[in-house]
């Protein structure tokens, strides 16, 4: 496939996954803010911090805005100036889908386009005012539809592998960020490790990763910080855990490389190093939401994405010319 198109595929997967996880995080944080008797600042500021946009929000709306649930939700959902707002993720996903429409096929394009048209409509804006949960639910359902269509309508071939690689890499980062929220909430609210409120936060984070029910079944209701962190980091059967996403991403990279795809070696080395590092953390029993540890995961994943993008968009004039080969 065309290298430029492969790059678009990775980004389409990332934007769709980002829109979904952002919507989910907002929905869960709303519930947490209503239930948990946390000060609003302790609920909402961490959400902005882990999205990487805290300095920008403060720069635009002032430091107190991070404790204003409405302001944070508006900023994270709608703000055109916030590069990771849901609006920008949906728009970028739709633009990406439009430019590789001939590769992803009509169904995925239509699902992405419908999500975009709905999100930009007056209907969505008014629903945001009157039935906000439904807005976030709609986004989650539509993005899930897109990703479901990826697996059920596309050829299981390079374009899908690149797209799914984007999904997995984005999910690694999102799960690490979600876990990191715990650190920020606890710091902000000056909470002890084992309080009941602490458990409420852990459960919220599980929900933000769609992991609540899977976790409860595994642990038969025994909730502890260690168990939740262990589950979200190391549970290889849970499709949003770091381990699962990393292993899957590595598997995709190896399959692509096995199909003679070029320019993946650097990204593969980084992902392998991160995977090994995760093994070490598990052996050392560091199943704790360590801010530095999670920051490392987020940074390394971003670096892997960066090298991937660089090699796919390379305009290397030295590309060797192949011997005549069969037509596609």
């Amino acid at each position, binding site marked *: *496939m*065309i*290298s*430029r*198109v*492969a790059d678009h595929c990775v980004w389409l997967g990332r934007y769709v996954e980002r829109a979904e996880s952002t919507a989910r995080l907002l929905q869960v944080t709303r519930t947490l803010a209503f239930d948990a008797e946390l000060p609003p600042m302790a609920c909402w500021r961490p959400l902005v911090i882990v999205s990487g946009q805290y300095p920008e929000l403060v720069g635009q709306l002032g430091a107190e805005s991070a404790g204003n649930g409405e302001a944070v939700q508006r900023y994270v959902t709608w703000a055109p100036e916030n590069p990771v707002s849901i609006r920008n993720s949906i728009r970028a996903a739709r*633009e990406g889908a*439009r*430019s590789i*429409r*001939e590769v992803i*096929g*009509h169904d995925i*394009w*239509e699902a992405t*386009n*419908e999500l975009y*048209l709905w999100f930009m409509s007056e209907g969505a804006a008014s629903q945001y005012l009157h039935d906000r949960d439904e807005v976030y639910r709609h986004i989650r359902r539509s993005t899930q539809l897109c990703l479901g269509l990826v697996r059920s309508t596309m050829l299981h071939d*390079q374009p899908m592998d*690149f797209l799914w690689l984007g999904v997995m890499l984005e999910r690694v980062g999102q799960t690490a960020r979600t876990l990191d929220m715990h650190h920020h909430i606890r710091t902000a609210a000056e909470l002890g490790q084992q309080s009941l409120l602490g458990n409420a936060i852990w459960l919220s984070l599980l929900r933000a990763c769609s992991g609540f029910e899977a976790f409860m079944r595994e642990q038969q209701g025994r909730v502890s910080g260690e168990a939740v962190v262990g589950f979200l980091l190391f549970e290889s059967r849970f499709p949003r855990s770091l381990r699962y996403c990393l292993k899957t991403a590595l598997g995709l990279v190896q399959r*692509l490389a096995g*199909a*003679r*795809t*070029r*320019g993946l070696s650097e990204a593969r080395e980084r992902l392998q190093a991160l995977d090994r590092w995760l093994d070490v953390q598990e052996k050392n029993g560091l199943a704790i939401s360590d801010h530095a540890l999670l920051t490392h995961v987020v940074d390394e994943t971003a670096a892997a994405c960066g090298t991937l993008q660089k090699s*796919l968009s390379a*305009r290397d*004039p030295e*590309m*060797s*010319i*192949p011997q*005549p*080969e*069969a*037509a*596609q």
Partner: protein
Amino acid sequence: MVLIDSSTTPTRAPAPGVLDGYKPIPGTYDELVDDKGATRAHGQMLAGMLRNMSADAFARCQALAELSLAQRGVTFSVYSDSRGTEKVMPVCLIPRVMGAVEWARLEKGLVQRLTTLQLFLDDLYGPQKVIADRIIPAELLLGSKQYLPQLRGMKPPGGVRIHIAGIDLIRSPDGVLRVLEDNLRTPSGVSYVIENRLITKRLFPAAMDRIGVRRVDDYPVQLVETLRSVSPEDPDRSTIVVLTPGPFNSAYFEHSFLARSMGIELVEASDLFVHGNEVFVRTTLGPRRVHVIYRRTDDAFIDPEFFRPDSLLGVPGLMRAWAAGKVTLANAPGNGVADDKAIYPYVPDLVRYYLGEDPIVEQVPTYICARPADRDFVLGHLSELVVKAVDEAGGYGMLMGPQASAAEIAMFHDRVSADPRRYIAQRRIELSTSPTWVADSRTVEPRRIDLRPFVLSGKGRSWVLPGGLTRVALRPGSYVVNSSQGGGSKDTWVQAEAS
């Protein structure tokens, strides 16, 4: 989405149908109704369907059609906005119907015209007998901005120059279809033909079935077979791509649509490079040789080495590869000279010259001011004529006589007298009309239309898409059918021959 086939919905009481009270514009040919108000023979089924449809039912169908087009992303970009704002192509659901007999004759005429223009281009970029035999004045041909002298002597790989043509036709009040313009470079619009058909099939299946409408959805297959047939190498081992300027091009939807429906890659210029006169595309598996490029970019943006040294657009070396016979470009570079305004009046002469036949399709009578008798007539009738400078486009250097002021007419009198070779003139044609839904008044009124059929020419094969793009001037009284200026489109139903 729930769609209703209103054409099968029986009406209990004779409710007012949308066609009630429909009156053609006097002095203008209407495609459905003759000047006595009677329905034309090939329009009986359509008229029957419309008479059974209330304004409510029609408005509902129209709304469903528009929603469906938006959701499918059937859009064109508007250039005035650098972000590439997209608009849904406006569509009127009332189709234009063409009878089988008329269509068969038109098909023959279009193939004849394209055969002629292909021979003309081969000649012009080769021996130039047309000049030696004084069929067209040499200075007119060689002075055309569209003539590329640096291509002379080069032969296109595969032998074909006009692989894809879109011929604009209008119908004059006498009922005769006439060529208004040949588009031999990168004609667009075929994706709307296919998308419009998807919608009419969903909304009016029963009526279509009764009329026996010929299918248009095999265009992509015909196109890819045409492209494959002109590959410089083994067609079955050839890689074919569509080259687009990118998502901000006004016709991007169509580029993507065609690549998708042909199952081939859509590439941008930066995806391609030339090595040793062969063209390659950058893929995740390394470079892959490309044999045929269906390019939707203008000549000027094919190859900066060849056409525009100042430009960064295009693929450096592509013209070298083409001249070396290593890659086929569809359409071939240099075709613009054959759809030039200055050459258009001579096409009937070219048909006689190259084929020894009389032209089957008429065109709009044109006065060539280079001819003294024509010039004198034009100078005496400026207020009735449309005068065009042959080397200008987009409405510049043009006199609309019927609307012009005395000063403008005097100015053109001076210009044509001073340099008659630069000018041609035509009478303004009263374009034919078709019943068209007017959303504001919820009524059906006559609106002016044209027709762009598409002709594919490969090695030893020609094919005319049975249908084509009918464009409609949606504004009352307007003659402008362009989508950028308030134009829309209609499905074109070509009746299958009566068995």
